[in-house]
């Protein structure tokens, strides 16, 4: 070697030789380097700051309008008689929180594909992917780095919306736990979408195509899961053994004494087969809906008031609806198997772990397929793609 060559730093030790923690640290270090590159490359384009500003303005508008709407509703309520037993209004916090949360999730679901769905094939089109592949970075490091970068930017968007969620809590009715759990679930949901986007971008040849497909995947999770559930329920027609409920004579409405909450009826007579939909067979479709996952994970107080008057928040209704779907007729049909059914499903049977598991499985599958397409030396190339 020449003298000039000797002054150069030269290669570092071969990776994988260092045992245990050194190898892990090296792997994570590679991911961090890719994240740094991605963030530098992305964050310096002004478009994202404009988008972040638009995001802030939109959420501020939604918060303000919801608050104004709540105030208007309270004014009209003040001049009208309130039925007894009606739960006291919880303050605007709950309503604003739910609306803002729903919008933040909506916007997050819309922004995450834009952040992630051209991460790999955008680089391929720009000729920079092969530059990474020819270095010591492994396909996994490239993929995880791109995922983490997209996720971090998505988290920045979520962080920008935190003040509005905190504002909703400060208005009353909610605990800091709501903020923490809902933000945590939002972060997890955007992670799922980012992973789906990065996976698809590694598989698809063109950025435009992968972005469209990722948006379709989001639409499939949000809307398609509902449609599929609705259609699927039609196929689950079956029977359930039940007998007749007998309600004690009891007046409802103003003046009625708040009786014992559960049970308010008894089941009598012979068990006969009744027609019912076995919703539990297709409830997993519903569980994949990001709204269901987020709503179901957020804690809400156990109800103690009679259910007829109960009107919970949106989050609570989504959660209860989904839980009754997974419980199926055996758990929800009146007097199924001669049992008195609780009309309010407890929180001991959460649905979100199932939904999240399915979402993570989908995202994991796409990431794995994407990883395979990044392995070099490449054996198979997708039709019409060039490696560089």
């Amino acid at each position, binding site marked *: *070697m*020449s003298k*000039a*060559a*000797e002054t*150069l*730093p*030269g*290669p*570092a*030790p*071969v*990776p*994988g*030789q260092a045992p245990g923690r050194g190898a892990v640290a*090296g792997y994570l*270090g*590679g991911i961090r*380097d890719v994240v*740094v*590159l991605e963030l*530098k*490359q*992305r964050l*310096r*384009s002004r478009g994202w700051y404009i988008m972040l500003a638009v995001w802030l303005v939109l959420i501020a508008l939604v918060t303000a309008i919801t608050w104004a709407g709540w105030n208007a509703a309270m004014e009209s309520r003040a001049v009208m008689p309130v039925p007894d037993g009606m739960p006291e209004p919880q303050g605007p916090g709950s309503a604003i929180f739910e609306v803002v949360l729903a919008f933040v999730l909506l916007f997050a679901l819309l922004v995450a594909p834009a952040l992630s769905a051209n991460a790999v094939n955008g*680089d391929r089109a*720009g*000729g*920079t*992917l*092969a*530059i*990474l*592949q*020819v*270095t*010591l*970075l492994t396909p996994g490091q490239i993929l995880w780095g791109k995922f983490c970068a997209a996720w971090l930017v998505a988290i920045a968007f979520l962080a920008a919306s935190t003040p509005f969620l905190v504002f909703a809590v400060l208005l009353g009715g909610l605990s800091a736990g709501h903020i923490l759990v809902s933000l945590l679930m939002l972060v997890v949901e955007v992670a799922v979408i980012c992973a789906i986007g990065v996976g698809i971008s590694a598989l698809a040849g063109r950025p435009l195509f992968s972005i469209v497909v990722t948006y379709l995947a989001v639409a499939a999770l949000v809307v398609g899961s509902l449609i599929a559930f609705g259609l699927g329920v039609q196929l689950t027609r079956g029977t359930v053994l039940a007998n007749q409920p007998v309600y004690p004579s009891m007046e409802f409405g103003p003046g009625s004494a708040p009786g014992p909450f559960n049970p308010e009826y008894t089941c009598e007579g012979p068990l006969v087969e009744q027609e019912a939909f076995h919703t539990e067979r297709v409830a997993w479709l519903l569980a994949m809906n990001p709204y269901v996952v987020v709503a179901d994970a957020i804690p809400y107080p156990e109800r103690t008031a009679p259910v007829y008057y109960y009107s919970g928040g949106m989050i609570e209704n989504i959660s209860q609806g989904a839980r009754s779907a997974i419980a199926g007729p055996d758990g929800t049909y009146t007097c199924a198997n001669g049992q008195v059914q609780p009309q309010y499903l407890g929180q001991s049977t959460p649905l979100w772990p199932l939904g999240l598991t399915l979402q993570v499985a989908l995202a994991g599958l796409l990431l794995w397929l994407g990883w395979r397409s990044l392995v*070099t*030396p*490449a*054996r198979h*190339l997708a*039709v019409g793609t060039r*490696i*560089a």
Partner: protein
Amino acid sequence: MSVAEIPEATRAPLASGVSAVGVSRRFGTVHAVEHMDFDAPSGHVTALIGPNGAGKTTLLLMLASLLQPDSGTITVDGLDPAVDTAAVRRRLGWMPDTLGVWESLTAREILVQMARFYRLPKAGIDARVAELLALVRLEELAGQPARVLSKGQQQRLSLARALVHDPSVLLLDEPAAGLDPGSRVELRTLLRNLAAAGKAVVVSSHVLSELDEIADGAVFVNRGRTVKHQTVEDAAKQGRRYAITALDPAALAAKLTEMGLEFLPGTGRRPSVSLMLNHDDGAAALLRELVTSGIAVVSFGPASGALEETYMNLDTERK
């Protein structure tokens, strides 16, 4: 690179260069490379020459450990890219023909990132990057985003990027494209110095006259096949076409006819003739003869580079 830094397990005959034996690769039904042989020993600059679509880039991608050949073997310093991928990549510097730069990053940041991707010791990165920026004369633009660099400057940045980990094998796909004449001369000097430092340098290019000055040997490919291996010395010995112009073209033609030499009317703007001469001695003798016989010779020189001559004679399958 010192031998001590390389673990025993991956230690191979150091710097033996890069070679491919019987390599084939097809994309769908297109046979991009068919049973190609290629050898680029260390310490030499090897030119990879062929028309568009001949399979040059596909071959370089396979040599660069990005594409797996369908059949055949590739060795980089004695290592198989598919097996010892990391060890091979540590030795490989690859400059693609597409100009992929991270547009928002500055030239310095790009080189720092590359150094990190190659896991160079952190302490040495700044010095190494400064050294490379000086090498490709981009110090003044080091703080500018890569998107404001001109094509030639991006090309030089791309070269620096390929050199960041001091590879022992350099694969350069069209490195001279877009470079101004001054930068081309610098590139030539740089590549000669790298070869002199014991590296195997592979250059693919269409600009053949330039390769005469840079390359020690050439591999000609066409239609996915290796057509010819040749050193530049051999190319020069095979004879080449000379172009001669004189003040009186008619007198020149008469003299050449009298000497019994076959010649063709020239293709250039000025009235000239061209003829094949087998070696430089013959050229010197002819020039002496023409001058002494009173022909006013204005110019006398090779009409094409030695490699260009071979290339143009390979009209076997050229269309």
